[in-house]
């Protein structure tokens, strides 16, 4: 029954965080729309937060510091999402597209 005891192990959470980061990198490379890339970047930030929370629970002397850092990551992610969405809106108004291949002006 080692499978039912996974929630008390540090390695489980580290692997989950690495998995979220890997999904985010894959989405960031393979997506071709701006909103798809924004979704992938949210996954990246989630993986980083998961690592902070895992170390905070199992290793840190004061378990409040990691939670505060994760709160800061959440605030930065919210600000980033708001800015990115408004940039997507401005791009869509000018180019009528959010595909990254369509929004180039200079063909080099």
């Amino acid at each position, binding site marked *: 029954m080692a499978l039912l005891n996974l929630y008390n192990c540090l390695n489980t959470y580290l692997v989950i965080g690495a998995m979220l980061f890997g999904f985010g*990198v894959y989405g960031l490379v393979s997506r071709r729309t701006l909103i798809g890339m924004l979704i992938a970047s949210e996954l990246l930030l989630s993986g980083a937060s998961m690592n902070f929370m895992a170390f905070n629970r199992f290793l840190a002397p004061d378990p409040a510091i990691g939670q505060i850092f994760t709160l800061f990551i959440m605030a930065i992610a919210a600000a980033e999402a708001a800015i990115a969405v408004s940039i997507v809106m401005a791009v869509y108004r000018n180019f009528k597209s959010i595909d990254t291949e369509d929004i180039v002006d200079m063909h080099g």
Partner: protein
Amino acid sequence: MQATICQTVANPSLFSAESFVGIIFLITVGLIITGAGIAVVSRRLVRCISGLAVCFTGVAGAYYFLLSPFLAMMQMLIYVGAVSILIAFAIMMATPEGEDTAGNKGSAKGPAIAGPLGIAVGALMFAALSVLGVKTDWQVFPRTGTGDMESMGKILLTSHSMVFELISIVLLIAIIGALVLARRGRN
């Protein structure tokens, strides 16, 4: 409570409370994996954002298992309640009519190597970070705090107050910048 890297309960029976908690944790991990997979693989952007919301719900459950119910609540409020809805609004407003695909439709334009390259880079990052996390001999330090909300509030307003103020300035600038960017070009 003394923190150790891997606490094991000595052979719990399948119908005990510990194994019930373990089953709930496995469901949480399943939510995270399924949601993240849908969010990066699905072709339609609406399904992507639904998968992202499912994944964030699973992450909130994992935060609860990491002894931080406050962060789990914040995750539900900020990510599931605000960021997902914001991106859903962006999808509804900025996706051209009849073209709801997330890419790879017109395969003539755009490099075809992006998909395999993305899988390779993502799998490499996952493998490298997992091996690094599992193989490292982590040092456990003795606990000096409890990590409840009262100590978090005290730290936030004493030793980390500078960062707290900086975050508020960043949020203010983000709000103003978003307003200016969304307002420009509209007569």
